[in-house]
């Protein structure tokens, strides 16, 4: 009974270490392969399109929805003690520091990370990744690197875009519905913000982008078990990358705000 418990505990620990090590090795190989030739510009452009351009509608809708809901909550809350003017300031702070990077990261982990896991997972079970190996092509270089570069560059850009959309979401509620002055909103949105906050948001988005690509690609690359494995890879990718985005957000916030 006791031995069985320690046996299970030990094997679970070893499996966890094995998985962590494998992810670290794959990630390390992906970073090391960034500057290796041949450079596949066409593949990179395709990833920019998939990660960046095609994600704009999702980012617009989620940023708009979240910023509008947040503005409604702030207007209601601050009205309790006649401080409606603070709503736009807190809206600006919340959108730039937290909502834009985290919401963009979470939405893209669902849209992009899952697609990467499904695509690479299908390639794995249909032997396309073995075919790459046989054609003397490193799958990490060919598959991971363009996706890693595309997310690391496009997620910060989409976050900046999300901040812009968030500004107008707050504007719609606080100016359009709550009747605040447009001039005051425009001025106060930035009152509590410094350039450092934008920099922190973009650094967070950069890290989230790398998490999304590395987890998505790794989950797909390690897919086993045919259709069931391909089905599990995107789900597992979204759960893992979302979790790591939230954990990384906490530590980045603590680290960068000091």
């Amino acid at each position, binding site marked *: 009974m006791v031995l069985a418990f320690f046996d299970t505990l030990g094997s679970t620990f070893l499996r966890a270490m094995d998985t962590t090590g494998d992810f670290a090795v794959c990630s390390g190989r992906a970073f090391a392969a960034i500057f290796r030739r*041949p450079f596949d510009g066409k593949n990179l452009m395709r990833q920019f399109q998939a990660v960046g351009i095609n994600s704009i509608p999702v980012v617009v809708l989620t940023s708009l929805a979240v910023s509008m809901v947040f503005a409604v909550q702030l207007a209601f809350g601050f009205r309790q003690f006649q401080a409606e003017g603070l709503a736009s300031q807190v809206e600006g702070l919340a959108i730039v520091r937290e909502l834009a990077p985290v919401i963009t990261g979470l939405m893209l982990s669902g849209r992009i990370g899952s697609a990467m896991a499904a695509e690479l997972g299908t390639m794995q079970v249909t032997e*396309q990744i*073995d*075919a790459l*190996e*046989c054609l003397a*092509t*490193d799958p990490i270089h060919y598959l991971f690197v363009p996706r890693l570069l595309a997310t690391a560059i496009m997620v910060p850009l989409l976050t900046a875009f999300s901040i812009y959309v968030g500004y107008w979401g707050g504007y719609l509620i606080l100016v359009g519905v709550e009747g605040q002055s447009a001039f005051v909103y425009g001025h106060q949105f930035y009152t509590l913000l410094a350039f450092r906050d934008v920099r922190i948001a973009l650094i967070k988005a950069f890290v989230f982008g790398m998490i999304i690509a590395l987890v998505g690609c790794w989950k797909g690359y390690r897919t086993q078990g045919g259709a069931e494995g391909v089905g599990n890879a995107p789900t597992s990718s979204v759960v893992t990358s979302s979790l790591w985005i939230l954990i990384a957000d906490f530590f980045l916030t603590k680290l960068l705000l000091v």
Partner: protein
Amino acid sequence: MALIDVVNLSKAFGPKVVLSNVNLQVEEGESLVVLGGSGTGKTVLLRNIMGLLTPDAGHVSVDGKIIAQLSREDLFKVRQSIGMCFQMAALFDSMTVFENVAFGLRRHRDHTESEINARVEECLSLVGMRGTEHLKPAELSGGMKRRVGFARAIALKPKILLFDEPTTGLDPVMTDVIGRVILDLKHELGVTTITITHDLTSAFEIADRIALLFRGECIACQPPPEFKVNPNPVVQQFLRGDADGPFLQDPPPPKRKPKETQA
């Protein structure tokens, strides 16, 4: 020295031993056909030759280089001299036929676009697939996919071609077509080939030597005429295609008598 030398190769997955002390030598220009029941390690043998799997014991050497001991860069150099044709073709489904065949050329050769076009056309002609350049793999039949897979494998002018069950799942006519394509490639390119197949007709056409894997071991490796008269009961049972005999580990279901006899 043999171009491909498989020495005491053993490979197991967990408790299941798939290959046990397999020894095979393939000379330059020779065509070896590997036969064997399902799950006897034929594909595992090819994957060890390509370096996609690492042997538990023994080694595979290609052109004097021990595959498992090569650095990744050196392994990729060796792989450029080997063309692998997968059982289900393994074409890149996001690319067209042209892009699939041109893939290796674009990555490993400094060819101009017109040179690539010419080489792709030449490869597709060799396998009878000209005019399909703009199609996607999803638009091709099973036999066409295999042939495009062959074209992709020969694009880099390899010294060795490995065919992993190229006729499995195809109708008899397409099986014959694929057999002819393999023969054409063998004669026109003069390459060394290892073919895994269950189709005995094409095996005897293609092979200079035939090997039979049985329970992870190579129990025969002979030229076709000698293989045909090999006294080993496993070889004879395999050639007859009979369920009764030592080939199966579990006894097969009893043979039903024809209806007339029953009456």
